[in-house]
């Protein structure tokens, strides 16, 4: 009886993250396979408009006769790139400012960083991106930059709280007592202990960046030299009315697969680090 109870516990605890990992591996696997066996060129315009599913066009073609599968592939890479880039940069910024602010809690570096967080969180995101894009007209990465500038704040707040919590713990006090420098204490002793929070927040930034990019490029605020899911969905809004679904379906299913798989993994990470079930 005990054994069956245990296995039931096992399955419910690991089924969902396992499903998430499976979807993610499948997603990356398809992309890698397509890198080895390339599809048609995504920009090529052909007279074959709104073609159905065929060997030549596995997901059909769009209004310009372009191959949807290869466009979806390019868009997937584009989203992954943005997700990783923004998560990395915003994460780095948030972690360093959070460490600093937590270490100097109550003193002026903390006050300045908290103030900056408050200011950034008060500005509406989409308008900020638009304004920044305008101010940095010559710069190709203004959207990514805007995301980095706005997405670091939650990470900084969480890391700050963690540092303040950990600073009171005995092992940190003893590390400081034996004369370890603040920098070393932070990186060698405090940072590793913030890892659960850090990882969860990183994947949240990843998700937020991908979602935001889709909406921005749908609205036409994205980087137009690249194909993205948002653009595919934007094209498709006129097509679904006339019954052409492939553009919409392929972009939205890929988007869902990627975000859902990451959410499933993150969620189990979060539940494990906080058994009371943290904030979604």
């Amino acid at each position, binding site marked *: 009886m005990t054994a069956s109870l245990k296995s039931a516990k096992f399955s*419910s605890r690991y089924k*969902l993250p396992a499903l998430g990992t499976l979807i993610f591996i499948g997603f990356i696997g398809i992309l890698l396979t397509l890198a080895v066996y390339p599809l048609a060129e995504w920009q090529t315009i052909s007279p074959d408009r709104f073609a159905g599913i065929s060997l030549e066009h596995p997901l059909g073609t769009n209004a310009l006769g372009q191959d949807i599968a290869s466009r979806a592939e390019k868009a997937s890479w584009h989203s992954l790139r943005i997700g990783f880039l923004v998560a990395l940069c915003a994460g780095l910024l948030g972690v360093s400012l959070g460490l600093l602010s937590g270490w100097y809690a*109550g003193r002026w570096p903390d006050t300045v960083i908290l*103030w*900056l967080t*408050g*200011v950034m*969180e*008060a*500005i*509406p*995101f*989409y*308008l*900020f991106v*638009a*304004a*920044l894009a*305008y*101010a*940095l007209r010559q710069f190709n990465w203004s959207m990514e930059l805007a995301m980095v500038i706005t997405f670091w704040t939650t990470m900084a707040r969480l890391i700050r709280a963690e540092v303040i919590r950990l600073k009171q713990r005995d092992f940190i006090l003893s590390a400081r007592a034996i004369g370890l420098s603040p920098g070393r204490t932070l990186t060698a002793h405090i940072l590793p202990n913030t890892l659960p929070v850090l990882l969860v927040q990183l994947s949240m930034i990843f998700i937020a960046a991908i*979602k935001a990019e*889709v*909406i921005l490029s*749908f*609205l*036409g*605020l994205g980087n137009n030299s690249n194909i993205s899911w*948002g653009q595919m*969905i934007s094209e*498709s*809004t006129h097509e*679904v*009315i006339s*019954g052409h679904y492939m553009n*919409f379906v392929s972009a*939205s299913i890929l*988007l*869902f697969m990627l*975000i*859902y798989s990451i*959410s*499933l993994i993150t*969620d189990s990470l979060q539940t494990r680090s906080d058994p*009371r*079930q*943290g*904030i*979604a």
Partner: protein
Amino acid sequence: MPIYLRKTLHSLSLLLGVTFISFLLMVYFGPDRSYAIAGKNPDTAQLEEIRQQLGYDQPFLNRYFTYIKDLASLNLGQSESNGKPVSQLLAETIPVSLMVLLPGFLVGNLLALLLAMVAAWYRHSWPDRLLTNLSLAGVSVSFLIIIILLSTWLCTPQGLNLFPSRGWRVDSLASWFTYATVPSLALIIVTVFFNLRFYRALLLDEMQQDYIRTARAYGAGPFSIMFKEALPNTLIPFLTRLLFSLPAILVSGSLLLESYFGIPGVGKVSFDAIFNADQPVLNAIVSLSAILVIVIAWLADFIYPYLDPRINLQAETP
């Protein structure tokens, strides 16, 4: 220093920061309006004169102070694309946005709270698992996809074709239902998915407290335990989430909803302003919504002591 004074000062410093950034982005590095005003082939003298009129020749700080003064006196300038005063434009569009967004936002949050109560009550059994897994899948669906699916289903000949797919001619409750139902539904769905798990975690935390055990021991039923015992203890985080997502919904949410459904609200106005580089309009919306966030945070600090008697604003906290 009394704590409410400190909080007020903090809010003022945030205001200063937000206005500084919007000044920097929209005015200082923003579009140069002198060419547009001067018309075709201006000579240097003409340009210089216009630049003087616009105050472009002033030093940086002077321009910033003029900017703040204008903002404080609600002198928001005129829209460049249609020449209307920005304040009038906002006065026309804000009510429309509120009519589109507020009902869906409130209903969505209340529904999320009720479902969270169900989930927290049946913790770890099937209703809880169903709801949490559903909402995890739900937050993974982009708002955009939900809007498109809903409007394709309800507003096109492909689907049920019950509602107009675009537009806004609202003068009565019936016409409100015609034009606002689909956007509201989309907003409700997103709000429920987005908040359900958060509210569940809040309630679950309370359900494990000793005072709930006391209530159970003294014969309180499910309704009483949830609404009279647990809920009052979650009001602060609940209200915080509600209040602080309001500005984001009003600006970012309306941007997508209104541009998709062609509703002339704040979102549509800012969408147009972005594409026409209509700087005074953008500037006003960014500044005002940031001010809204800060004012809400400031107000919240004064509401909290009424929700939790343990919070005392007079007391000095370290």
